[in-house]
């Protein structure tokens, strides 16, 4: 039966479980919500300097594990655009937006929805809608991305 399910979906499910386990360790161990934008953003704007080591070590783990796993599972192509204007605009929007909203896919999406937080659910609905409309306009209509 597993053969009927695309391999990508199974990798997605397995990878998702690891992401959730990471969030569970961060919550049950340190009592913190695992949100990537908050962990990085707090280091940038100074609000998280009191816990800088915890944040830095977390980010080290995030960068390091793909390096460790690459020899075992092979390289992953990210297929990111090389359009600098798009990259800069998207980076600014993601940076400003996630800090205004106090969360991104990990904080609002994974950690918020799993505790049935209304804020997390509403944020996730809005960013998926906005992302869907963006892809519709820029890919299907304008053909830019």
């Amino acid at each position: 039966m597993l053969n009927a399910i695309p391999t990508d979906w199974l990798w997605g499910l397995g990878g998702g479980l690891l992401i959730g386990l990471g969030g569970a360790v961060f919550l049950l161990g340190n009592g913190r919500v695992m949100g990537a934008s908050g962990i990085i953003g707090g280091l940038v704007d100074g609000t998280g300097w009191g816990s800088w080591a915890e944040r830095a070590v977390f980010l080290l783990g995030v960068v390091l594990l793909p390096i460790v796993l690459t020899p075992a599972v092979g390289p992953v192509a990210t297929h990111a655009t090389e359009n600098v204007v798009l990259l800069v605009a998207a980076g600014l929007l993601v940076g400003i937006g996630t800090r205004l909203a106090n969360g991104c896919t990990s904080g609002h999406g994974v950690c918020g929805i799993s505790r049935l937080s209304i804020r997390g659910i509403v944020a996730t609905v809005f960013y998926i809608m906005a992302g869907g409309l963006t892809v519709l306009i820029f890919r299907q209509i304008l053909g830019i991305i």
Partner: protein
Amino acid sequence: MQRLVFSFIAGGLFGAGLFLSGMTDTTKVQGWLDVFGNWDPTLAFVMGGAILPMAAAWTFTRGRKPLVGGDFPTPPEPRLGRNLVVGSLMFGIGWGLVGLCPGPAIASLSYGGWPHWVFLSAMLAGFAFAPKIRSQLDTALPAE
């Protein structure tokens, strides 16, 4: 020290999960958002897989304390402010344009090549501007 060990394990699991799930591949993320094109449901499997252990963890927090001491985060007030909506819309547009969000942007730094560094630099600049933009937004258009 214990706190740092948990942080490293959590970050490692997060990075491994993002890497193995395919979520650092921008075509899979944009494919999920491309409802009217060649739709790719992988992201829903990732989200579902991540929410399961996380929901168990939230349930487990009841009546307990974090292993390093202190308290678990209290639920935020269920207030849907303007910043939550405006911020999420901005985030969604940026996410759709390139297919990267903060977690995968970090996880892919070792193998994504220069476009990821450009995106990351702009995202960090966005983090730096955000407090100022928030206060200007609050002055120009008070939320209440």
